[in-house]
């Protein structure tokens, strides 16, 4: 899991020159289905989006060239600034918490004790929950009048918080439900990673009599780093693209506190009929994610331990 390394050609075969033309064609043949599909459903719409971002446009198509107007408009608007803030906060709230929670659960269940299989199944179960279904459940739990959170608060004599109505808490509430939804997947990956660590390393540590936390810091985490790196990257990308739970739980409100960029794009494109502005936001989002991913590969590569 390392960009530079990935991109180095792997010497899988020694090519004979006369065969290489055929191999060239055959190689592309295998890639053809993917290439066609990516071109039609990813690259074409991406270029179309970039193109549309320079126009005033609705769902049917562009109707007036606007130059950089969409970008100007977006960058000046408070709404976009709060979108950026919400997106960044959302990513910061969800990604580390998900990873830490999943890692904690994975460490707990890495011991081979009786009935551990059941617990593993439970902890990974949220992976099978659809965003639509999960969000409906959480929406109900957050309900200030009849939901379980306010019942617990009442029972404990704490003030009832309007989780989804209060701009100070809404993003936190959405993040909490997101953490729950994405833990299952992260947990599974990390658990697998833990199980792939050579048991001899631990035996040696036990003989040396080191503490659990020393072992965690010096053996487990370094050996797990490629897996961690993988799941962090995937979680980052997913967090930036969160849509469903926002749509169902808050619709971007209150006071735009949960209006993350992807939701703002959706709203402009599908409700406000302003495809030009939506496209410009999509382009900005794309470059942000691109830069972050490249940065992550560059920085992460130094920290990751390879066998």
């Amino acid at each position, binding site marked *: 899991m390392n960009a530079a390394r990935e991109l180095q050609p792997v010497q899988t075969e020694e090519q004979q020159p006369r065969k290489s033309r055929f191999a060239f064609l055959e190689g592309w043949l295998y890639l053809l289905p993917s290439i066609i599909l990516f071109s039609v459903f990813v690259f074409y719409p991406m270029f179309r989006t970039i193109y549309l971002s320079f126009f*005033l446009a*609705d*769902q*049917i198509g562009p*109707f*007036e060239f606007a130059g950089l107007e969409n970008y100007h408009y977006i960058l000046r608007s408070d709404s976009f600034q709060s979108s950026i803030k919400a997106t960044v906060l959302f990513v910061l709230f969800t990604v580390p918490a998900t990873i830490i929670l999943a890692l904690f659960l994975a460490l707990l269940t890495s011991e081979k004790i009786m009935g551990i299989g059941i617990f593993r199944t439970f902890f990974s179960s949220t992976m099978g929950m659809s965003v639509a279904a999960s969000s409906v459940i959480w*929406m109900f739990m957050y*309900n*200030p*009048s*009849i939901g379980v959170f306010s019942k617990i608060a009442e029972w404990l004599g704490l*003030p009832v918080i*309007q989780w*989804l*109505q*209060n*701009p100070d808490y809404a993003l936190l509430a959405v993040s909490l439900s997101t953490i729950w939804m994405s833990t299952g997947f992260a947990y599974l990956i990390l658990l697998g990673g833990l199980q792939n660590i050579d048991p001899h390393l631990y035996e040696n540590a036990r003989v040396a009599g080191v503490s659990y936390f020393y072992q965690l810091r010096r053996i487990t985490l370094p050996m797990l780093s490629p897996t961690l790196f993988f799941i962090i990257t995937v979680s980052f990308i997913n967090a930036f693209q969160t849509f469903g739970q926002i749509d169902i739980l808050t*619709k971007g*409100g*209150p*006071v*735009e506190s949960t209006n993350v960029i992807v939701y703002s794009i959706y*709203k402009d494109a*599908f*409700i*406000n*009929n*302003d495809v030009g502005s939506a496209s410009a936001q999509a382009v900005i989002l794309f470059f942000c994610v691109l830069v972050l991913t490249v940065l992550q590969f560059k920085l992460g590569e130094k920290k990751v331990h390879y066998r």
Partner: protein
Amino acid sequence: MKKLLVGLSVLFVLFLTACSGTESASGTTEDGKTEIIFWHAMGGELEASVNDIVDNYNNSQDKYTVKPVYQGSYEESLTKLKTVAGTEDAPAVTQIFEAGTKQMIDSGNVQPVQKFIDEENYDTSQWEENISSYYQVDSEQYSMPFNSSTPVLVYNKDAFEKAGLDPENAPRTYSELKDAAEKLTIKEGDQTSQYGLSILNYGWFFEELLATQGGMYVDNENGRDGEATKAAFNDEKGQRVFELISDMHEAGTFYNVGQTWDDMRAAFQSKTITMMLDSSAGVKGLVDNADFEVGVAYLPHPDGVDPQGVVIGGASLWMAKDINEKQEQASWDFMKYLSTPEVQAKWHVESGYFAINPAAYEEDIVKQEWEKYPQLKVTVDQLHDTVSSPATQGALISIFPEARQQIVTGMESLYQGADPKEALDKAAAEVDTVLEKGSRSR
């Protein structure tokens, strides 16, 4: 590997049948009937009711078949309609919410029902004028009203009694409202266990509170006298509404329920709030679920203002332009069927939406229903008392969805202690920008 191959081929066959099994959206069925597709946005309980009515229609005659299809929320179905308009996927009849009226007209993909009204001298005077006038533009009836509702003040009569208020006399003016809310609010230390009033953070309620004062939402007579160019809702009338919310929230008598209808009703049922503004269509469900007496009253208005009534909310039915003559006839026939007193009576009783044909109120099932739910009559009376004017006809703008978002953001900022005038001016400025941008569209 063999298993995989077998599985693959099975799936492939499935896949092909699925492809060939697709039906064209509108056409002729095997038995020679003309089939039309009817898109609607009625989920849950209402969908059952719509399906029922359509079934009855299909059985009532043998020329046409209507196929109802749910298409998501109002916003989602409008978006979908815009993208399929003009293609063969487009439905013949679509239900569109009131805020989408201008977009529909501008799209050029619909035809006014006025054409059919003129052709057979259909008597539109049987319709409720206050409802149909919303969908009249340049004195042409564009769409056929279908489900209409208005906002009402819903209150907990038991709580009124406990607080020493007259349960039969709901507050009418803002000062009465504030007083009542004050008395209804129960505080224990710094904890409030019961609040006076809630208004859903939904642009529609602001529009209504503005209209009942005779206030305009946008300039050019609410966009009905020409293209709207500027927001008009940030005048003193609009400010009164924002001030009311702001004052009451500050006094601790107003409870912010967010923007979900269900959350607001849950707060009412669980007695967190004692008064709220709700849609007339929701009244019956509230009465059914509450374990206390539910009262319904007219929308409150500021002191010293003559109430003008309400703008109708809800949705109407639109006919697509590019359909053949048979389908046009089928659509029109279906629309006419929907507006008959019997169907409207059934619809009113089952959904709580208004009957667009007042004759329905004379039907027996309605009379029985009103006996059981006297609250429903209040909602109808309020509509009848409405003075028809550009203010109560409602604004005609294509950027309604976005304008509503701006109002909602403004309302939400009030709970954060924003100044009412500033919040409203900010929303107005945003709406101005969007209006300007929208005016450049084709």
